[in-house]
């Protein structure tokens, strides 16, 4: 039933370039991530938020740490920085203080930001440094071959917890909200539209804007924990995610068990003075007093 005014579709068309290619370093594709890895989806969501943002592309900065998610910066056609393991937020803090007009986004993994860099995470949230931080949480150390970390659920099996993990993991949004961030959210790699919307909101937020993105890690975490295919975990996210923006954050720890639900949402969006604003006020106050030259 196609009227003459309506165009015809047709079979797929093979092309050399993607419509997002101007925003990425497409010459570096295919990327290094495993089939079904959620990191690429996060990159796509970030790219679409970049395209929508009114902030000039020159001022958009991407900073990563080390590990699988650490490679994100290298695929973005921005001023990008691939730093050291755990230190991306500290690196970003320095740049953000030196250049408050930049829109800095840190994209890194759970082990990177939440474990080795956990101290930088909570202190940046405490200071409310005006940066965006995306933590792609795949529940384990992927690049080194699947070891347990500070976000690995209790009981989960990895190469270094072969009998089940005996460490209680961080409930990351609860932690970051308690530390003082202006914006705290959690989504999954399956929530592709909410991811982009949250990215866009984070670029507007003044202060520390944080998002945890739960992501499949098929070859290491998934295989041992009831999600043999990447698709299994994506379906888990689709079927078991409960959107609750007003969730009690103390109760949203992730178990990553196929029968348990996962609470997602934009949990915190509040106004607190950012670190850069407070530093700017301080400078203005000091300079108004005049510099008594000795």
């Amino acid at each position, binding site marked *: 039933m196609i009227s003459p005014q309506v165009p015809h579709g047709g079979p797929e068309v093979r092309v050399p370039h993607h419509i997002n290619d101007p925003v990425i370093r497409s010459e570096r594709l295919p990327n290094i991530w495993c089939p079904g890895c959620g990191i690429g989806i996060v990159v796509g969501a970030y790219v679409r938020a970049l395209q929508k943002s009114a902030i000039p592309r020159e001022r958009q900065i991407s900073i990563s740490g080390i590990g699988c998610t650490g490679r994100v910066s290298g695929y973005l056609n921005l001023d*990008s920085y691939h730093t050291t393991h755990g230190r991306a937020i500290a690196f970003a*803090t320095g740049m953000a203080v030196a250049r408050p007009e930049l829109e800095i986004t840190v994209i890194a993994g759970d082990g990177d930001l939440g474990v080795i860099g956990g101290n930088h995470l909570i202190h940046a949230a405490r200071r409310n440094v005006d940066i965006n931080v995306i933590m792609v949480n795949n529940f384990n150390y992927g690049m080194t071959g699947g070891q347990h970390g500070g976000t690995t659920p209790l009981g989960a099996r990895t190469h270094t917890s072969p009998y089940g993990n005996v460490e209680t993991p961080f409930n990351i949004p609860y932690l970051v909200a308690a530390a003082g961030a202006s914006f705290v959210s959690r989504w999954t790699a399956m929530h592709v539209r909410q991811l982009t919307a949250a990215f866009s909101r984070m670029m507007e937020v003044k202060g520390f804007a944080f998002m945890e993105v739960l992501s499949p890690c098929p070859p290491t975490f998934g295989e041992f924990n009831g999600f043999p295919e990447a698709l299994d975990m994506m379906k888990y996210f689709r079927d078991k995610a409960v959107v609750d923006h007003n969730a009690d954050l103390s109760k949203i720890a992730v178990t990553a068990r196929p029968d348990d639900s996962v609470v997602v949402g934009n949990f915190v969006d509040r106004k607190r003075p950012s670190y850069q604003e407070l530093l700017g006020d301080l400078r203005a106050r000091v300079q108004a007093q005049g510099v008594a030259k000795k």
Partner: protein
Amino acid sequence: MSSADAGGLKPGDHFMMGNFACVEGAILAGCRFYAGYPITPSSEIFERASVRFPQVGGNAIEMEDEVGSMAALVGASFGGAKVMTATSGPGFSLMMENIGLAYITEAPVVLVNVQRAGPSTGIPTLVGQGDMMQAKWGSHGDLETIAYSPSSVQEFFEFTIQAFNAAERFRTPVFVMADQIVAMMWERLRVPPAEEIEVTQRLVMEPAADQDRERVVFDYAKDFIPMPIAGRGSRVNVDSLTHDSRGYPTTDHGWSEKMTRHLAGKVRGHAREIWRWEEKFLEDAEVAVVSYGSAARSALAAVKYARAKGVKAGLLRLQTPWPFPDEVVEKVSRKVSGLVVAEINAGQMIHPVRENSRCPVVGVPWAPGTLIEPRAIVDAMQAVVAS
């Protein structure tokens, strides 16, 4: 080159602590960003920076640890700021990780290490010079280090400015290896007029055409490569991984070789321009002391005393321990019958001295947490002359 910043200390004579003089040198050199973590005996640098930097439109921020401090410095350096921190041994150890980041990403950073006594926590309030080898070998992988070692408040001020100039020119971390004595002592500081203070500005990369994906951003054939500063549209990937001329990570042997040679070569190839040293009474010396930092003041006292006793003694003071001024040491070693290395540690710089000398070299191991006593150096010199 341009001249010093107008926001700095008034020209003329001041009576000042070494740690304070260091901060004033940094401000005159154009430094406007400090990220630190307090540690004895360097804390006055952070305190003074906290007072002074906001006055001149800069920031002095406290990070959660030294690891974060050094990371923040590299970030701010790529933000275009001239950056510094100060620490002591324990903090220096923590900073090693991101000193390596600064090195491989070619970020100008100035780090002042006010050395104290002992390994681990050691004796925080007492003097040592035990971090000299750490400065050279502390961060993993091949690193070519530039380090200054001041012996007076005046030099602490001047070497801080020179450290910034070297850091900006060579785009590399540069250390000022001070010590507790020179940091805590008060002396007269003579500040020259701003126009007489030469200040080096870094080479900055021009914005790139958006779609020019094939350009060579890092031309390793050149020693000095313009720095891609965030927010100017250079669209460069800055990477802690070994990277090719476009800044992309690579495991290619050729690029690994090229990048590593470039990083070391830009310092080694210009070592003669970096070297600074002072010679005293070397013309007719039969024995010479090699020393640096506050220890060199004891060495000078020892040399004068020995001369008064009829021993033809001389002093070679290394103002830049790294890159090691091998030719200078070798030349001196050919003139004397022996060298005595006076330093406040169990023997560190004695190793490159020995490696480059043509005469016997003896050390004066010294680690009680005090300035090395001239008497010990005189004894060593007399033993060298007697043998």
